[in-house]
């Protein structure tokens, strides 16, 4: 575990140095993160010019939700997307996976977390700022903050596991590029799950648990820890992680290599 943590830190450090070499790109990424956040905030402000509640959430509460969403979106963009984006074409069809299999570290770790896009963390920091905006004047209880933190960690684990599971499908169908789909459906987590109609709400809660990304943690921050939500999140995170590891193992058994 310590070895993996050291590898992770080394990969992040290398990515950071590589990124800082190109200053203009840095400017683009920061500007884009700010623009994305402003766009999210503008949407929320616009909605609340027409109503006081969105599926039971007030404006400051929605800011908490958007802040949590932006935080996890930044984490996803920093650690998951640079590794698993286009995995079917790069990893399987072009054979990048072969190099991971030859290295003395778990291939799942190397394929999903070896590199990073550190600048995307700007979005996560801005998300924390928005969260602060929501919390301002409505300070949550220490237990609520602890529950929020646990749920965010569970959400991060589910995010990673879903990314890996979708990437694993490429072992059976190498032309199946689902990261565009994942990024698209991810956007639905930006709003309270309560706005969606029943079949979609059930899908986003139990099948693709995007409710864990923002709605559940923000609700914990508002209403304090709910034992049922914490337990469900822990079970969802553990199940999703185990499923991802199993799918990866099964996929590797099927993989025959693309390079010589």
């Amino acid at each position, binding site marked *: 575990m310590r070895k993996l943590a050291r590898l992770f830190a080394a990969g992040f450090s290398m990515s950071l140095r590589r990124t800082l070499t*190109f200053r*203009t*790109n840095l400017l*683009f*990424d920061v*500007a*884009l993160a700010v*623009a*994305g956040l402003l*766009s999210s905030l*503008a*949407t929320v402000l*616009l*909605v609340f*010019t*027409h*109503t006081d509640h*969105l*599926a039971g959430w007030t404006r400051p509460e929605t800011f908490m939700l958007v802040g949590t969403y932006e935080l996890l979106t930044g984490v996803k963009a920093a650690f998951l997307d640079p590794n698993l984006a286009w995995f079917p074409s790069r990893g399987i069809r072009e054979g990048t996976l072969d190099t991971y299999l030859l290295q003395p570290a778990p291939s799942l770790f190397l394929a999903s977390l070896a590199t990073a896009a550190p600048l995307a963390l700007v979005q996560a920091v801005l998300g924390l700022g928005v969260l602060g905006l929501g919390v301002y004047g409505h300070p949550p209880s220490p237990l609520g903050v602890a529950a929020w933190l646990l749920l965010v960690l569970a959400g991060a684990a589910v995010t990673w596991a879903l990314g890996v599971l979708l990437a694993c499908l490429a072992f059976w*169908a190498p*032309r*199946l*590029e*689902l990261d*565009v*789909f994942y*990024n*698209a*459906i991810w*956007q*639905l987590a*930006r*709003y309270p799950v*309560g*706005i*969606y*109609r029943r079949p*979609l709400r059930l899908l986003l809660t139990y099948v693709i648990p995007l409710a864990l990304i923002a709605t559940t943690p923000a609700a914990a921050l508002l209403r304090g820890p709910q034992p049922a939500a914490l337990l469900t999140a822990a079970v969802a995170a553990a199940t999703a992680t185990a499923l991802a590891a199993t799918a990866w193992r099964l996929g590797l058994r099927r993989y025959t290599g693309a390079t010589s």
Partner: protein
Amino acid sequence: MRRILRLTALRVRRQFLDWSGTWWFTITLVANESLVPLAGLFVWSAVFPGDPRVVSYFAALIAVQIMTASYENHTFSETVYQGTVSHELLRPQPVVIGPIGENLAIRLWMALFGLPPAVLAGFLLGATYRPADLLLALPALAGAAVLRFLYTWILALTAFWTERVHAVVTFGGMLMALLGGAVAPVSLLPGPWRTVAQALPFHAMLGLPADIAIGAVTGPAAVAALGRGLAWIAAFTVLAAVVWRSGARRYTVVGA
């Protein structure tokens, strides 16, 4: 002109066949285009429960998104980065024919996969339209298709200057979603923003055909909006020609 049209038709046919093998990816593109208006549908249905115009507007918007989708930052800009645009520069035909052909082929596939579920979802959710409004929305849709291509094409041409074309196009997409009617119908924007949004090209790229289809923009207002769209098409055509000429002059490539 006939030669250009024939070459474009040939390119559409070739790209249509090329894309026939990536039907699953096309479906993910359809999902990607549909989800922003779908989220808008749920948000605004929660704000105005029971208002049938919300469902009709966003169901029409999903169709507009699918039929006007443009990916020149992927199809063209990558050829600049990889240097393969040189092959196109050597051919005795305008380079833009290639991106137009691929754009139309992708839209055809996306319409084939995306329109039936969009129509079905609209029907199930209770979207209703008057045939006359739908007919009037067709020229607006054609204008949106041309305008959105030109807009993405101009942004994609920034690949001649920067490696971050995807960031540029993503930023352009955000503006389009905010001011074009994807996040919220333009009529729901606060006063001054509404005026700005109606004057800018984004509404004509996205929300205008949906607004006309549900009867929210009719008569002289619709004609004026279509006129503004045409003016933006003319302006973007000139701008695209200028940016292309300047970018092609700047472009250098090493190797065969």
